[in-house]
């Protein structure tokens, strides 16, 4: 986009083009995060109401109470901004912004349609996970700076929880990276083009289980019930944000809903085909970038709709889970992570690696349309394969991932053999 605008400015003023483009990207993303929070807070109230056999908000703004969040916002702005007398004032005031910035920064690398990201990063998956891990920093600062027992307890729980859950989350995210042979979210999304059978969640039984493990771990890592030990209002008053009020408090909630959306979008791109719909309508009708710029834009907009719909659906599931399951105890949270999620994720990782190495065809190879391998080979990026993250720091099996990365090029032709023979 910057390259598109740049010729309209003289050489001295080209930076204006870049600045404009950067501002547009930022505005779009902030708009998405803010409107997402607006929508999801309303949705949370409605869904929780329905689950508890109530109606939820009905009055503000017409039929479904859809302006409820705005009314909440007005109330929050009008509230007094209290800082406790004993608090570390600077850190106390900064903590909400740290949380929000981390959650917002993760959106930079998320592509909403093929190539439509604020910044196309070569290592998108890794970047998003790394930045999301920083959100907990704001929570810990808040807990510490409040100078309150409840806050500190909440912050410590959050720290223990997030640090533990990053391990299975990382292992789960490596599985689609390994299958796609790239950490670039664009490439991962494009590998799942075609019918819904091409989505990585249906790639093999191991990825199917991996998706659910990923979803559990991401729920835990964004501190949502049943893993919301850090706020646990029945034991810790309100946990890390006990001492916060008004707009600062709402920043924590914007951050929470923002990161819910970001992990859901990541799940949608890694496992659920991203911007590719269940039926490749855009490809059948011809709304692709190859047919022209305008059709490409229309296809891209449809893709954005797909991505956001999948993300919102996953957020709805998170809300549903929150109002269905009771909160776990802290030791149960740790058991879930270390004794269940991590071993399952590691086993699924090994299984998916072996499945790919042995080249067993699955649903996507039996689908009644053009061979998915043609789709894969048609990709411009398929030759420039980045290898899976070689972080031998976490688990010894990562060597296996590297070996997989090498053979993934061979692997595709290897799979292509039996499939084409069958036709």
């Amino acid at each position: 986009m910057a390259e598109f605008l740049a010729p309209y400015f003289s050489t001295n003023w080209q930076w204006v083009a870049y600045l404009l483009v950067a501002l547009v990207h930022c505005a779009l993303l902030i708009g998405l995060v803010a409107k997402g929070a607006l929508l999801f807070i309303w949705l949370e109230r409605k869904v929780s109401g329905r689950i508890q056999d109530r109606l939820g908000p009905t009055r503000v703004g017409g039929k479904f109470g859809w302006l409820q969040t705005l009314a909440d916002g007005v109330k929050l702005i009008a509230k007094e901004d209290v800082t406790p007398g004993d608090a570390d004032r600077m850190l106390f005031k900064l903590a909400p912004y740290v949380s929000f910035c981390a959650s917002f920064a993760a959106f930079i690398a998320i592509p909403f349609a093929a190539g439509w990201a604020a910044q196309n990063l070569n290592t998108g998956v890794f970047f998003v996970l790394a930045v999301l891990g920083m959100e907990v920093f704001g929570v810990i600062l808040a807990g510490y700076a409040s100078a309150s027992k409840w806050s500190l307890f909440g912050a410590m729980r959050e720290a223990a929880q997030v640090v533990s859950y990053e391990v299975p989350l990382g292992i789960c995210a490596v599985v689609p990276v390994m299958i796609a042979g790239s950490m670039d979210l664009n490439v991962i999304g494009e590998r799942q083009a075609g019918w819904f059978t091409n989505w990585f969640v249906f790639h093999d039984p191991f990825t199917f289980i991996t998706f659910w493990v990923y979803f559990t771990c991401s729920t835990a890592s964004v501190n949502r019930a049943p893993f919301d030990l850090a706020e646990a209002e029945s034991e810790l008053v309100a946990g890390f944000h006990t001492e916060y009020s008004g707009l600062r408090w709402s920043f924590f909630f914007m951050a929470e809903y923002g990161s819910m959306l970001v992990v859901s979008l990541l799940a949608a791109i890694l496992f659920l085909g991203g911007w590719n719909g269940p039926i490749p309508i855009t490809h059948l009708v011809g709304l692709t970038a190859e047919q022209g710029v305008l059709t490409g834009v229309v296809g891209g907009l449809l893709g954005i709709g797909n991505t956001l719909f999948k993300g919102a659906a996953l957020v709805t599931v998170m809300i549903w889970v929150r109002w269905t399951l009771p909160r776990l105890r802290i030791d149960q949270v740790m058991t879930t992570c270390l004794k269940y999620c991590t071993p399952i994720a590691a086993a699924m990782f090994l299984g998916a690696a072996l499945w790919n190495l042995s080249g067993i065809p699955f649903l996507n190879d039996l689908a009644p349309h053009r061979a998915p391998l043609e789709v894969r080979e048609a990709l411009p990026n398929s030759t420039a394969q980045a290898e899976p993250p070689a972080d031998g720091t976490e688990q010894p099996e990562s060597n296996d991932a590297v070996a997989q990365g090498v053979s993934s090029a061979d692997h595709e032709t290897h799979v292509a053999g039996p499939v084409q023979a069958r036709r």
Partner: protein
Amino acid sequence: MEQGIYWPSFFFLLFGAISCLFSVAVVLTSNIVRMAFYLVLALAATSGLFFLAGADFVGAMQLMIYVGGTLVLLIFGVMLTGKGPFVSLSTRGGEWILAALVGGSLLATLLPATQAVDQWQGISRDELPQTVSPTATRLGLGLLGARVDKLDQPNPALREGMSGYLLPFEIVSIHLLVVLIGAAYLARAKRRRATEIVE
């Protein structure tokens, strides 16, 4: 020809300034949590420098390892040093002298190093790269043993050694595995002894 501002330089100076500023702030504060906070900002600015250089992978690594590591440091800082509500570290005169000596000698080593590379001096605007190419693929292939970057090496003497970094990578992996098993063993042994005493 007038070309306007060279933006990479601008952002380099910006990130560099942020990094330096907060590094100094780390030294000057006495509150351990504020220190950790400044350290995180300094390290995040450093990862910004890596992203600016097109090293996505190293930048994300910097965020994940160093910033995440500082997080753990912060937790231990609060848990192990906290006697009152806010922890503060005071530095004595002797420690200042020792620290200044160590820090000053490091600085004295690094400053000549920045001046030692000829290619870094007196570059005109036209020689500067206008775009950066991503390095993640090359890094990954290098780790596996295929040093694609060696293909562009004009000096034939330096083109030797196409083996890459597979062996060091394996050694580091095994080393970390050993450390993990050792840590698990130590943690288990303590618990077993406790039960024996109980029995």
